[in-house]
Protein backbone atom coordinates (compact mmCIF):
# COMPACT_ATOMS: atom_id res chain seq x y z
CA UNK A 1 0.00 0.00 0.00
CA UNK A 2 1.85 3.04 -1.22
CA UNK A 3 -0.89 5.41 -0.32
CA UNK A 4 0.78 8.37 1.32
CA UNK A 5 -2.00 10.78 0.45
CA UNK A 6 -3.92 10.30 3.71
CA UNK A 7 -1.59 11.47 6.42
CA UNK A 8 -1.00 9.42 9.46
CA UNK A 9 -2.94 11.66 11.80
CA UNK A 10 -6.15 11.32 9.91
CA UNK A 11 -5.81 7.55 9.67
CA UNK A 12 -5.12 7.40 13.36
CA UNK A 13 -8.12 9.55 14.12
CA UNK A 14 -10.37 7.32 12.02
CA UNK A 15 -8.95 4.31 13.82
CA UNK A 16 -9.70 5.90 17.20
CA UNK A 17 -13.27 6.79 16.17
CA UNK A 18 -13.77 3.25 14.93
CA UNK A 19 -12.51 1.87 18.17
CA UNK A 20 -14.82 4.14 20.10
CA UNK A 21 -17.73 3.09 17.91
CA UNK A 22 -17.20 -0.51 18.92
CA UNK A 23 -17.13 0.24 22.60
CA UNK A 24 -20.49 0.25 24.34
CA UNK A 25 -21.35 3.75 25.59
CA UNK A 26 -20.83 2.87 29.22
CA UNK A 27 -17.16 2.06 28.70
CA UNK A 28 -16.16 4.96 26.49
CA UNK A 29 -13.97 6.74 29.02
CA UNK A 30 -13.05 4.66 32.02
CA UNK A 31 -11.30 7.54 33.69
CA UNK A 32 -13.47 10.61 33.89
CA UNK A 33 -16.86 10.21 35.52
CA UNK A 34 -19.57 12.63 36.47
CA UNK A 35 -18.86 12.10 40.14
CA UNK A 36 -15.19 12.98 39.77
CA UNK A 37 -15.94 16.09 37.72
CA UNK A 38 -18.46 17.34 40.23
CA UNK A 39 -16.02 16.68 43.07
CA UNK A 40 -13.38 18.71 41.26
CA UNK A 41 -15.96 21.47 40.71
CA UNK A 42 -16.76 21.59 44.41
CA UNK A 43 -13.05 21.65 45.24
CA UNK A 44 -12.55 24.57 42.84
CA UNK A 45 -15.41 26.49 44.44
CA UNK A 46 -13.99 25.87 47.90
CA UNK A 47 -10.54 27.02 46.80
CA UNK A 48 -11.96 30.14 45.16
CA UNK A 49 -13.77 30.96 48.39
CA UNK A 50 -10.53 30.42 50.30
CA UNK A 51 -8.63 32.84 48.11
CA UNK A 52 -11.47 35.35 48.35
CA UNK A 53 -11.26 34.92 52.13
CA UNK A 54 -8.04 36.94 52.14
CA UNK A 55 -10.11 39.96 51.16
CA UNK A 56 -12.56 39.67 54.02
CA UNK A 57 -12.12 40.45 57.70
CA UNK A 58 -11.77 36.77 58.63
CA UNK A 59 -8.28 36.59 57.22
CA UNK A 60 -5.92 36.45 60.20
CA UNK A 61 -2.76 37.48 58.34
CA UNK A 62 -3.88 40.87 57.08
CA UNK A 63 -0.65 42.53 58.17
CA UNK A 64 1.74 39.98 56.74
CA UNK A 65 1.38 40.47 53.03
CA UNK A 66 3.97 37.83 52.12
CA UNK A 67 1.95 35.17 53.88
CA UNK A 68 -1.15 36.37 52.06
CA UNK A 69 0.56 36.30 48.68
CA UNK A 70 2.08 32.87 49.24
CA UNK A 71 -1.32 31.55 50.26
CA UNK A 72 -3.04 33.04 47.21
CA UNK A 73 -0.40 31.66 44.85
CA UNK A 74 -0.65 28.21 46.46
CA UNK A 75 -4.43 28.27 46.02
CA UNK A 76 -4.10 29.37 42.38
CA UNK A 77 -1.57 26.66 41.61
CA UNK A 78 -3.81 24.05 43.21
CA UNK A 79 -6.81 25.20 41.19
CA UNK A 80 -4.76 25.19 38.00
CA UNK A 81 -3.47 21.69 38.76
CA UNK A 82 -7.02 20.43 39.31
CA UNK A 83 -8.20 21.88 35.99
CA UNK A 84 -5.17 20.56 34.14
CA UNK A 85 -5.27 17.07 35.62
CA UNK A 86 -8.98 16.40 35.52
CA UNK A 87 -10.72 18.72 33.08
CA UNK A 88 -7.88 18.67 30.57
CA UNK A 89 -7.55 14.96 31.25
CA UNK A 90 -3.80 15.03 31.71
CA UNK A 91 -3.85 12.78 34.75
CA UNK A 92 -4.92 9.91 32.54
CA UNK A 93 -2.90 10.66 29.43
CA UNK A 94 0.18 8.73 28.35
CA UNK A 95 3.77 9.74 28.91
CA UNK A 96 3.70 12.44 26.26
CA UNK A 97 2.19 14.72 28.87
CA UNK A 98 5.62 15.09 30.48
CA UNK A 99 6.92 16.63 27.24
CA UNK A 100 4.44 19.43 27.81
CA UNK A 101 4.36 19.82 31.53
CA UNK A 102 8.02 19.61 32.46
CA UNK A 103 9.28 22.46 30.22
CA UNK A 104 6.33 24.62 31.22
CA UNK A 105 7.04 23.99 34.90
CA UNK A 106 10.72 24.71 34.36
CA UNK A 107 9.77 28.00 32.78
CA UNK A 108 7.49 29.02 35.63
CA UNK A 109 10.11 28.06 38.19
CA UNK A 110 12.73 30.01 36.31
CA UNK A 111 10.45 33.03 36.14
CA UNK A 112 10.01 32.87 39.89
CA UNK A 113 13.72 32.44 40.57
CA UNK A 114 14.50 35.39 38.33
CA UNK A 115 11.91 37.74 39.69
CA UNK A 116 12.05 37.11 43.43
CA UNK A 117 15.64 38.23 44.07
CA UNK A 118 15.55 40.94 41.45
CA UNK A 119 12.30 42.59 42.43
CA UNK A 120 10.82 40.84 45.42
CA UNK A 121 13.78 41.18 47.74
CA UNK A 122 14.44 44.82 46.98
CA UNK A 123 11.28 46.31 48.35
CA UNK A 124 11.76 46.90 52.02
CA UNK A 125 14.79 49.13 52.08
CA UNK A 126 13.10 51.78 49.98
CA UNK A 127 15.94 52.01 47.49
CA UNK A 128 14.58 49.59 44.97
CA UNK A 129 17.43 49.56 42.56
CA UNK A 130 20.38 48.90 44.87
CA UNK A 131 20.83 45.58 46.56
CA UNK A 132 21.99 45.66 50.13
CA UNK A 133 25.49 44.57 49.16
CA UNK A 134 25.78 47.26 46.57
CA UNK A 135 24.63 49.91 48.98
CA UNK A 136 27.18 48.79 51.55
CA UNK A 137 30.17 48.46 49.29
CA UNK A 138 29.69 50.99 46.54
CA UNK A 139 32.37 53.63 46.38
CA UNK A 140 31.54 57.17 47.35
CA UNK A 141 31.84 59.66 44.57
CA UNK A 142 34.83 61.82 45.50
CA UNK A 143 34.09 65.44 46.28
CA UNK A 144 35.25 67.88 43.64
CA UNK A 145 38.57 69.35 44.82
CA UNK A 146 39.52 73.02 44.47
CA UNK A 147 42.51 72.06 42.32
CA UNK A 148 40.17 70.26 39.88
CA UNK A 149 38.13 73.41 39.45
CA UNK A 150 41.27 75.46 38.72
CA UNK A 151 42.41 72.91 36.17
CA UNK A 152 39.02 72.98 34.45
CA UNK A 153 39.06 76.79 34.35
CA UNK A 154 42.52 76.83 32.81
CA UNK A 155 41.50 74.38 30.15
CA UNK A 156 38.57 76.55 29.16
CA UNK A 157 40.56 79.76 28.86
CA UNK A 158 43.22 78.00 26.76
CA UNK A 159 40.63 76.87 24.30
CA UNK A 160 39.43 80.41 23.72
CA UNK A 161 42.89 81.84 22.97
CA UNK A 162 43.86 81.95 19.30
CA UNK A 163 46.30 79.22 18.54
CA UNK A 164 49.73 80.50 17.62
CA UNK A 165 51.22 77.36 16.22
CA UNK A 166 50.44 77.93 12.58
Amino acid at each position, binding site marked *: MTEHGHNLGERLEERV*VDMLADIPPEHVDVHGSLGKYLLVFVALCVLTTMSFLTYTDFWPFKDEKHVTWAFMMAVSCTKAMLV*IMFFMHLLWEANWKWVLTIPASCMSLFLLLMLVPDIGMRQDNGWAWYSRQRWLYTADKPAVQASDIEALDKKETQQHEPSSTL
Partner: protein
Amino acid sequence: MSDHSHQPLKLAYQPALPVPNGKTCVWLFLSTEIMFFSALIGTYIVLRFGAVAWPKPHDVHLSEPIGAFNTFVLICSSVSIVLGLEAAKRNRAAEAKGWILVTFLLGCVFLGVKLFIEYPAKFAHGLYPQSPHSLVYDKADIQYAAAVRKRLLALRAEIEPKNPRTPEDEQKLAVIDEVSRDYLEPAETEIRNNPDSPQGLILLLKLAYAIYPPQYGHEGALESAIANGFETTPIQLVSFLEETGTAESDEHDAGDGHAHGYNDRNPWLRLPIMVPGGSLWASTYFLLTGFHAIHVFVGLIVFALMLTMTLGRNKAALIENVGLYWHFVDIVWIFLFPLLYLF
Protein backbone atom coordinates in the same frame (compact mmCIF):
# COMPACT_ATOMS: atom_id res chain seq x y z
CA MET B 1 22.17 -8.89 -6.29
CA SER B 2 18.80 -7.33 -6.75
CA ASP B 3 15.77 -9.48 -6.67
CA HIS B 4 13.10 -8.10 -8.97
CA SER B 5 10.29 -10.30 -7.76
CA HIS B 6 9.50 -8.81 -4.36
CA GLN B 7 6.83 -6.20 -3.80
CA PRO B 8 7.71 -2.57 -3.07
CA LEU B 9 8.68 -2.12 0.58
CA LYS B 10 5.76 -1.56 2.92
CA LEU B 11 6.83 1.20 5.21
CA ALA B 12 4.82 1.76 8.36
CA TYR B 13 5.30 5.11 10.03
CA GLN B 14 5.40 5.04 13.77
CA PRO B 15 3.33 7.81 15.30
CA ALA B 16 5.57 10.11 17.29
CA LEU B 17 2.89 10.57 19.91
CA PRO B 18 -0.14 8.32 20.45
CA VAL B 19 -2.33 11.38 20.04
CA PRO B 20 -4.37 12.65 17.09
CA ASN B 21 -2.83 15.53 15.17
CA GLY B 22 -5.51 17.95 16.19
CA LYS B 23 -4.87 17.41 19.87
CA THR B 24 -1.11 17.72 19.44
CA CYS B 25 -1.54 20.97 17.60
CA VAL B 26 -3.86 22.37 20.25
CA TRP B 27 -1.36 21.51 22.97
CA LEU B 28 1.43 23.15 20.97
CA PHE B 29 -0.74 26.22 20.55
CA LEU B 30 -1.47 26.23 24.28
CA SER B 31 2.24 26.13 25.07
CA THR B 32 2.70 29.25 22.94
CA GLU B 33 -0.19 30.83 24.81
CA ILE B 34 1.49 29.92 28.09
CA MET B 35 4.56 31.80 26.92
CA PHE B 36 2.39 34.72 25.84
CA PHE B 37 0.59 35.09 29.15
CA SER B 38 3.75 34.41 31.15
CA ALA B 39 5.34 37.38 29.43
CA LEU B 40 2.41 39.61 30.30
CA ILE B 41 2.10 38.35 33.86
CA GLY B 42 5.87 38.60 34.37
CA THR B 43 5.72 42.18 33.14
CA TYR B 44 2.92 42.91 35.56
CA ILE B 45 4.88 41.38 38.45
CA VAL B 46 8.01 43.37 37.63
CA LEU B 47 6.17 46.66 37.19
CA ARG B 48 3.92 46.25 40.18
CA PHE B 49 6.47 45.15 42.72
CA GLY B 50 9.08 47.55 41.42
CA ALA B 51 6.74 50.50 41.56
CA VAL B 52 7.09 53.17 44.22
CA ALA B 53 3.36 53.22 44.78
CA TRP B 54 0.43 51.11 43.60
CA PRO B 55 -3.25 51.87 44.00
CA LYS B 56 -5.39 49.67 46.19
CA PRO B 57 -8.63 48.20 44.78
CA HIS B 58 -10.99 50.93 46.04
CA ASP B 59 -8.70 53.67 44.71
CA VAL B 60 -9.32 52.42 41.20
CA HIS B 61 -12.84 51.09 41.63
CA LEU B 62 -11.80 47.47 41.44
CA SER B 63 -14.39 45.20 42.99
CA GLU B 64 -13.17 41.90 44.40
CA PRO B 65 -16.63 40.33 44.77
CA ILE B 66 -17.29 40.89 41.06
CA GLY B 67 -13.94 39.29 40.25
CA ALA B 68 -14.78 36.31 42.44
CA PHE B 69 -18.15 35.98 40.72
CA ASN B 70 -16.43 35.99 37.32
CA THR B 71 -14.06 33.29 38.53
CA PHE B 72 -17.00 31.19 39.60
CA VAL B 73 -18.69 31.70 36.23
CA LEU B 74 -15.61 30.52 34.34
CA ILE B 75 -15.18 27.48 36.58
CA CYS B 76 -18.80 26.51 35.91
CA SER B 77 -18.21 26.91 32.17
CA SER B 78 -15.20 24.58 32.40
CA VAL B 79 -17.36 21.96 34.09
CA SER B 80 -20.10 22.32 31.50
CA ILE B 81 -17.78 21.82 28.56
CA VAL B 82 -16.31 18.69 30.16
CA LEU B 83 -19.84 17.34 30.58
CA GLY B 84 -20.53 18.26 26.95
CA LEU B 85 -17.50 16.25 25.90
CA GLU B 86 -18.66 13.24 27.88
CA ALA B 87 -22.10 13.47 26.28
CA ALA B 88 -20.60 13.69 22.80
CA LYS B 89 -18.42 10.64 23.44
CA ARG B 90 -21.57 8.71 24.32
CA ASN B 91 -23.11 9.95 21.06
CA ARG B 92 -25.80 11.94 22.85
CA ALA B 93 -25.78 14.87 20.44
CA ALA B 94 -28.64 16.86 21.92
CA GLU B 95 -27.22 16.71 25.44
CA ALA B 96 -23.80 17.68 24.17
CA LYS B 97 -25.24 20.66 22.36
CA GLY B 98 -27.08 21.66 25.53
CA TRP B 99 -23.86 21.67 27.53
CA ILE B 100 -22.06 23.65 24.82
CA LEU B 101 -24.90 26.16 24.93
CA VAL B 102 -24.50 26.43 28.72
CA THR B 103 -20.76 27.03 28.26
CA PHE B 104 -21.46 29.67 25.64
CA LEU B 105 -23.94 31.46 27.88
CA LEU B 106 -21.62 31.39 30.87
CA GLY B 107 -18.84 32.83 28.71
CA CYS B 108 -21.23 35.57 27.63
CA VAL B 109 -22.00 36.31 31.29
CA PHE B 110 -18.28 36.63 32.00
CA LEU B 111 -17.74 39.02 29.10
CA GLY B 112 -20.92 40.90 29.93
CA VAL B 113 -19.85 41.49 33.51
CA LYS B 114 -16.45 42.63 32.33
CA LEU B 115 -17.65 44.88 29.51
CA PHE B 116 -20.82 46.30 31.06
CA ILE B 117 -20.00 46.42 34.75
CA GLU B 118 -16.28 46.41 35.42
CA TYR B 119 -14.83 48.43 32.58
CA PRO B 120 -17.50 51.15 32.67
CA ALA B 121 -16.83 51.55 36.40
CA LYS B 122 -13.24 52.43 35.56
CA PHE B 123 -14.07 54.57 32.52
CA ALA B 124 -16.63 56.60 34.46
CA HIS B 125 -13.88 57.77 36.78
CA GLY B 126 -11.37 58.56 34.05
CA LEU B 127 -9.31 55.41 34.40
CA TYR B 128 -8.36 54.51 30.85
CA PRO B 129 -5.26 52.73 29.66
CA GLN B 130 -4.08 55.61 27.55
CA SER B 131 -4.03 59.36 27.22
CA PRO B 132 -5.87 61.47 26.21
CA HIS B 133 -8.85 59.57 27.59
CA SER B 134 -7.02 58.79 30.79
CA LEU B 135 -7.32 61.40 33.50
CA VAL B 136 -4.73 59.78 35.74
CA TYR B 137 -1.72 61.60 37.12
CA ASP B 138 0.73 59.95 39.47
CA LYS B 139 1.69 62.98 41.50
CA ALA B 140 0.07 66.21 42.56
CA ASP B 141 2.59 68.53 40.99
CA ILE B 142 2.59 71.62 38.79
CA GLN B 143 1.79 69.66 35.66
CA TYR B 144 -1.22 68.23 37.42
CA ALA B 145 -2.41 71.69 38.43
CA ALA B 146 -1.90 72.87 34.85
CA ALA B 147 -4.00 69.99 33.56
CA VAL B 148 -6.76 70.86 36.03
CA ARG B 149 -6.65 74.47 34.90
CA LYS B 150 -6.82 73.41 31.26
CA ARG B 151 -9.88 71.30 31.89
CA LEU B 152 -11.62 74.04 33.85
CA LEU B 153 -10.92 76.50 31.04
CA ALA B 154 -12.31 74.08 28.48
CA LEU B 155 -15.47 73.65 30.57
CA ARG B 156 -15.87 77.39 30.94
CA ALA B 157 -15.39 77.92 27.21
CA GLU B 158 -18.14 75.42 26.66
CA ILE B 159 -20.66 76.85 29.10
CA GLU B 160 -20.03 80.58 29.33
CA PRO B 161 -20.85 81.56 25.73
CA LYS B 162 -24.27 79.95 26.03
CA ASN B 163 -27.08 82.41 25.88
CA PRO B 164 -29.48 81.82 27.63
CA ARG B 165 -28.01 79.57 30.31
CA THR B 166 -30.05 76.91 31.99
CA PRO B 167 -30.01 76.45 35.77
CA GLU B 168 -27.78 73.41 35.29
CA ASP B 169 -25.28 75.57 33.46
CA GLU B 170 -25.29 78.06 36.31
CA GLN B 171 -24.78 75.27 38.78
CA LYS B 172 -21.91 73.90 36.75
CA LEU B 173 -20.30 77.30 36.58
CA ALA B 174 -20.67 77.59 40.35
CA VAL B 175 -18.83 74.31 40.86
CA ILE B 176 -16.10 75.33 38.43
CA ASP B 177 -15.68 78.61 40.26
CA GLU B 178 -15.56 76.83 43.59
CA VAL B 179 -12.82 74.43 42.55
CA SER B 180 -10.87 77.22 40.97
CA ARG B 181 -11.22 79.70 43.82
CA ASP B 182 -10.90 77.37 46.80
CA TYR B 183 -8.29 74.89 45.61
CA LEU B 184 -6.58 75.60 42.30
CA GLU B 185 -5.75 79.25 42.63
CA PRO B 186 -4.38 79.12 46.20
CA ALA B 187 -2.10 76.26 45.18
CA GLU B 188 -0.85 77.92 42.02
CA THR B 189 -0.37 81.26 43.76
CA GLU B 190 1.63 79.70 46.57
CA ILE B 191 3.82 77.75 44.17
CA ARG B 192 4.45 80.86 42.11
CA ASN B 193 5.27 83.09 45.09
CA ASN B 194 7.28 80.60 47.15
CA PRO B 195 8.46 77.93 44.72
CA ASP B 196 10.38 75.91 47.28
CA SER B 197 8.02 76.03 50.21
CA PRO B 198 6.28 72.86 51.28
CA GLN B 199 3.06 74.84 51.67
CA GLY B 200 2.64 74.91 47.90
CA LEU B 201 3.00 71.14 47.69
CA ILE B 202 0.50 70.72 50.49
CA LEU B 203 -2.01 72.89 48.64
CA LEU B 204 -1.48 70.92 45.45
CA LEU B 205 -2.15 67.74 47.39
CA LYS B 206 -5.27 69.34 48.82
CA LEU B 207 -6.45 70.12 45.28
CA ALA B 208 -5.91 66.50 44.31
CA TYR B 209 -7.72 65.20 47.39
CA ALA B 210 -10.64 67.54 46.84
CA ILE B 211 -11.10 66.19 43.33
CA TYR B 212 -10.41 62.48 43.99
CA PRO B 213 -9.81 61.65 47.64
CA PRO B 214 -7.78 58.68 48.84
CA GLN B 215 -9.79 55.73 50.09
CA TYR B 216 -9.07 53.51 53.11
CA GLY B 217 -9.14 56.26 55.73
CA HIS B 218 -6.00 57.39 57.51
CA GLU B 219 -3.75 54.65 56.11
CA GLY B 220 -4.78 55.39 52.57
CA ALA B 221 -4.18 59.10 53.06
CA LEU B 222 -0.77 58.40 54.59
CA GLU B 223 0.32 56.17 51.70
CA SER B 224 -0.87 58.73 49.20
CA ALA B 225 1.05 61.50 50.96
CA ILE B 226 4.20 59.37 51.09
CA ALA B 227 3.90 58.70 47.35
CA ASN B 228 3.83 62.46 46.85
CA GLY B 229 7.08 62.98 48.72
CA PHE B 230 5.83 63.72 52.23
CA GLU B 231 6.92 61.72 55.25
CA THR B 232 3.54 61.84 56.96
CA THR B 233 0.13 63.18 56.06
CA PRO B 234 0.36 66.97 56.40
CA ILE B 235 -1.64 68.10 59.43
CA GLN B 236 -3.76 70.58 57.49
CA LEU B 237 -4.82 67.80 55.19
CA VAL B 238 -5.72 65.45 58.04
CA SER B 239 -8.32 67.90 59.23
CA PHE B 240 -9.38 68.64 55.64
CA LEU B 241 -9.91 64.93 54.98
CA GLU B 242 -11.83 64.55 58.20
CA GLU B 243 -14.04 67.50 57.33
CA THR B 244 -14.90 66.20 53.91
CA GLY B 245 -15.54 62.83 55.46
CA THR B 246 -12.93 61.00 53.49
CA ALA B 247 -10.77 59.91 56.41
CA GLU B 248 -13.37 57.64 57.91
CA SER B 249 -15.51 57.48 54.78
CA ASP B 250 -18.61 56.48 56.66
CA GLU B 251 -20.78 59.52 57.17
CA HIS B 252 -20.26 61.63 54.10
CA ASP B 253 -20.03 59.11 51.34
CA ALA B 254 -22.96 58.34 49.13
CA GLY B 255 -23.53 55.01 50.78
CA ASP B 256 -21.30 52.87 48.61
CA GLY B 257 -18.37 52.88 51.01
CA HIS B 258 -16.33 55.23 48.84
CA ALA B 259 -15.11 58.64 49.85
CA HIS B 260 -16.39 61.12 47.26
CA GLY B 261 -14.75 64.17 45.77
CA TYR B 262 -15.68 66.73 43.14
CA ASN B 263 -15.36 64.23 40.32
CA ASP B 264 -17.76 61.82 42.00
CA ARG B 265 -20.36 64.44 42.91
CA ASN B 266 -20.20 66.01 39.44
CA PRO B 267 -19.66 63.32 36.80
CA TRP B 268 -19.57 65.89 34.01
CA LEU B 269 -16.56 67.58 35.59
CA ARG B 270 -13.99 64.89 34.71
CA LEU B 271 -11.07 66.76 36.16
CA PRO B 272 -7.64 65.09 36.13
CA ILE B 273 -7.23 62.81 39.12
CA MET B 274 -4.14 61.97 41.16
CA VAL B 275 -3.75 58.25 41.79
CA PRO B 276 -0.23 57.19 42.85
CA GLY B 277 0.79 54.38 40.55
CA GLY B 278 -2.54 54.75 38.78
CA SER B 279 -1.14 55.14 35.30
CA LEU B 280 0.91 51.95 35.41
CA TRP B 281 -1.96 50.19 37.13
CA ALA B 282 -4.34 51.14 34.32
CA SER B 283 -1.89 50.00 31.65
CA THR B 284 -1.27 46.59 33.18
CA TYR B 285 -4.85 45.97 34.27
CA PHE B 286 -6.38 46.72 30.90
CA LEU B 287 -3.61 44.89 29.05
CA LEU B 288 -3.98 41.68 31.05
CA THR B 289 -7.75 41.61 31.31
CA GLY B 290 -8.14 42.90 27.74
CA PHE B 291 -6.07 40.14 26.22
CA HIS B 292 -7.84 37.60 28.38
CA ALA B 293 -11.21 38.97 27.29
CA ILE B 294 -10.14 38.68 23.63
CA HIS B 295 -9.29 35.03 24.23
CA VAL B 296 -12.68 34.47 25.84
CA PHE B 297 -14.34 36.15 22.87
CA VAL B 298 -12.53 33.90 20.40
CA GLY B 299 -13.69 30.91 22.42
CA LEU B 300 -17.25 32.18 22.25
CA ILE B 301 -17.05 32.46 18.47
CA VAL B 302 -15.94 28.84 18.28
CA PHE B 303 -18.78 27.75 20.58
CA ALA B 304 -21.26 29.63 18.42
CA LEU B 305 -19.96 27.77 15.36
CA MET B 306 -20.19 24.47 17.18
CA LEU B 307 -23.81 25.13 18.05
CA THR B 308 -24.60 24.87 14.33
CA MET B 309 -23.23 21.31 14.15
CA THR B 310 -24.58 17.95 15.25
CA LEU B 311 -22.29 17.05 18.12
CA GLY B 312 -22.19 13.29 17.92
CA ARG B 313 -19.36 10.86 18.54
CA ASN B 314 -17.47 12.00 15.46
CA LYS B 315 -17.27 15.52 16.88
CA ALA B 316 -15.93 14.42 20.24
CA ALA B 317 -12.36 15.16 19.17
CA LEU B 318 -13.34 18.68 18.15
CA ILE B 319 -15.08 19.31 21.46
CA GLU B 320 -12.07 17.93 23.30
CA ASN B 321 -9.72 20.31 21.50
CA VAL B 322 -11.94 23.34 21.99
CA GLY B 323 -12.33 22.28 25.60
CA LEU B 324 -8.56 22.27 26.05
CA TYR B 325 -8.44 25.88 24.82
CA TRP B 326 -11.31 26.86 27.08
CA HIS B 327 -9.73 25.24 30.14
CA PHE B 328 -6.57 27.14 29.41
CA VAL B 329 -8.50 30.42 29.30
CA ASP B 330 -9.98 29.44 32.68
CA ILE B 331 -6.52 28.71 34.12
CA VAL B 332 -5.22 32.09 32.99
CA TRP B 333 -8.13 33.77 34.78
CA ILE B 334 -7.46 31.62 37.88
CA PHE B 335 -4.03 33.26 38.03
CA LEU B 336 -5.13 36.73 36.95
CA PHE B 337 -7.84 37.02 39.59
CA PRO B 338 -5.61 36.98 42.69
CA LEU B 339 -2.80 38.85 40.94
CA LEU B 340 -4.99 41.75 39.88
CA TYR B 341 -7.74 41.82 42.48
CA LEU B 342 -6.40 40.45 45.71
CA PHE B 343 -2.71 41.31 45.82
